[in-house]
């Protein structure tokens, strides 16, 4: 058993073929340092993702380089090594290391230290080191896919689905990112058609579709009622459930107090006699509650309200320390009723909801946000338009990968080779490497 072959070993001098992990990790380190140097030299601006047609040209060139290397130099030690596990793992480790940096630094952070910026750490996925890591990764993954996957045999189908699937997915996702457009449009209720979109950099971009917001609305859950400490406004945690839902008839026990909702108004205003229903802007929800003390046999009745951006909250004191309070209601669903007209004169109307995007003229349109302060009275709604021409390619890759995963589940680790055979395989591989 030649243990040393895996880690480089003393017998084979450094950099003398066949290469192993030692050379691979050195290459990774070299790429990392080169990347950081390039990043620093260019002032930490990173790379701009190329857009059509440059990205397509670059991808086709990369693919051709890989095909060319495979076709004419596949038996050269370096190319052989590039399609080996040690090279693959070196590429995976380099990429993973950069993603780890990404996972540990806030992106993009507001206060970026100058060193962080100059190393590309404020924008890892657009940085030079990441770009070099990706090149190494695409090269090895491409070469190994060609070497082991072709000619296609029944046995290599799982391998091909996984490796080609990953290559296609990542190539389309990274190569195509420069063509992706994400624009937002903020629409106001009662205003006329607007086609003023804004991109991530805040630049205005006129669209070929104009939108008009007929209505923005939020459906809310019944707000929760809590027992709070009056001085600190802190919620008093109960044994199991800490809240009472504001729905007429519901009951809950808060410590010594048994509380029941006698009436609930989703939108109400306070009068001398209590709350009455109202539809004016900013009218908060309110509930008439009854609290019975089990210990002292007292019964209190009163109105509580969560308040809104226009009205203060109303608590009900139950004793000198505690009060009942209503939390601000949470959104169940929000939606925009929108009319549109395209430059070609096509018109239509749709209801836009979270998780239910609309497709118009090649754009996918999403409900994004509304004015947080006014909540359900928000007079505006922000929608996002996304165009991603590479999406079908990315999805093709994703479906290959899914098929590959199912294959992996069903076949598992190939056990047709007995342990003795795996030795044989190593011997063969070694012979190949030395030939």
């Amino acid at each position, binding site marked *: *058993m030649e*243990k040393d072959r*895996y880690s480089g070993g003393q017998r084979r001098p450094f950099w003398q073929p066949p290469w192993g992990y030692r050379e691979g990790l050195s290459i990774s380190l070299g790429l990392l340092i080169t990347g950081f140097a390039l990043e620093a030299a260019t002032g930490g601006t990173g790379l701009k993702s190329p857009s059509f047609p440059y990205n397509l040209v670059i991808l086709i060139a990369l693919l051709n380089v890989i095909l060319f290397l495979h076709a004419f130099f596949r038996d050269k030690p370096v190319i052989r090594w590039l399609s*080996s*596990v*040690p090279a*693959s*793992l070196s590429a*995976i*480790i380099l*990429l*993973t290391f950069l*993603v*780890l940096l*990404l*996972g*540990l*630094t*806030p*992106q993009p952070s507001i206060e970026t230290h100058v060193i962080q910026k100059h190393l590309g750490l404020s924008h890892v*996925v657009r940085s030079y080191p990441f770009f070099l890591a990706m090149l190494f990764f695409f090269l090895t993954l491409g070469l190994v896919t060609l070497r082991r996957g072709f000619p296609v045999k029944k046995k290599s189908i799982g391998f091909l689905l996984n490796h080609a699937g990953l290559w296609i997915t990542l190539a389309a*996702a990274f190569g195509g990112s420069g063509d*992706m457009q*994400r624009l937002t449009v903020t629409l106001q209720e009662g205003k006329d058609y607007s086609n003023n979109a804004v991109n991530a950099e805040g630049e205005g971009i006129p669209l070929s579709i104009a939108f008009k917001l007929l209505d923005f609305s939020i459906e809310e*859950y019944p707000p929760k009622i809590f027992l709070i400490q009056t001085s600190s406004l802190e919620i008093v945690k109960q044994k199991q*459930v800490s809240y009472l*839902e504001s729905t007429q008839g519901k009951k809950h026990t808060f410590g010594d107090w048994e509380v029941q909702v006698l009436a609930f108004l989703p939108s109400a205003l306070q009068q001398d006699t209590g709350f009455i229903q109202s539809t004016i802007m900013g009218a908060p929800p309110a509930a008439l509650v009854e609290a019975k003390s089990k210990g002292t046999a007292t019964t209190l009745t009163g109105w509580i309200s969560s308040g809104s951006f226009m009205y203060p909250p109303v608590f009900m004191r139950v004793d000198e320390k505690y009060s009942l309070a209503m939390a601000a209601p*949470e*959104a*169940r*669903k*929000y939606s925009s009723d929108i009319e549109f007209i395209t430059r070609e004169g096509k018109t239509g109307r749709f209801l836009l*909801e*979270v*998780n239910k*995007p609309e497709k118009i003229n090649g754009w*996918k349109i*999403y409900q*994004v946000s509304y004015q947080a302060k006014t909540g359900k009275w928000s007079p505006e709604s922000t929608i*996002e338009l*996304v165009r*991603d021409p590479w*999406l079908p390619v*990315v999805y093709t890759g*994703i479906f290959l*990968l*899914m098929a*590959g*995963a*199912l294959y*992996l*589940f*069903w076949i*598992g*680790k190939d056990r047709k080779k007995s*342990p003795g055979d*795996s030795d044989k395989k*190593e011997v063969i591989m070694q012979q190949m490497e030395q030939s």
Partner: protein
Amino acid sequence: MNWLNYPLVVLVSFTLWILGTFLLLIPFKRKQKDAAGLTLVAVGILVIAWFIIQLWIHLDRPPMRTLGETRLWYGFFLPVIGYLTFLRWRYRWFLALSLLLASVFLFINYLHPENYDKTLMPALQSPWFVPHVIVYMIAYSLLAASSLVALKGLYHHWKETGVQEELSLADNMVYIGFAFLTLGLLFGALWAKEAWGHYWTWDPKETWAFLTWAGYLSYIHFRIYAPKKALTPLLIISLAFVILLICWFGINYLPAAQNSVHTYSGS
């Protein structure tokens, strides 16, 4: 059929599953008992399926809108996948584990009936929610199990008593677990596209999910090239599991996660 019949349904399924698992687990006259055990488990699953269908008819919409309703689907799909995995790989413990997980979710529903009317926040109301979560639960339980095997392997390595058996069991678990992990990642991407407009944004949760995936990917490939090495692959599994735990629990505490779309705390 509505939620009022739920306790009875759960009781019937639990009884069938416990009897079935019992028959499958005791090592005695396997041939005859396995068939009986599998039938009992299957009938238990069908009872849950029947309840879901009845509830669907009763509600006149797919029961997939509230917390309680999503838990029903876990209670159905986890045993189905456990069952399929058993048919394919004959892992008795895995079937038992998936039934246990399913039972926990079904039982939580029984204890907290208020879950039936807790509607999910808008972004979570998606047909992708249930498959995404189930697939991840299965991946995580298998990968956690592989870490236990790796710990045993590390102990044997230290005692110098040979670890090939552990490694080969770990291989199987990681292969199946990795298949589910990949599916979970991809389902998540497809869902994100529908909900947030892009399939991958390097959000902290996504970033750490990628790191977890890369960890197990490294294990699989390391094993292909150096099947005789013992210590390194065991250490890779252990490290990958630490990353998995960070991805699962630790995200909220990382400085990079200030504005993750995946931290749903506070609701």
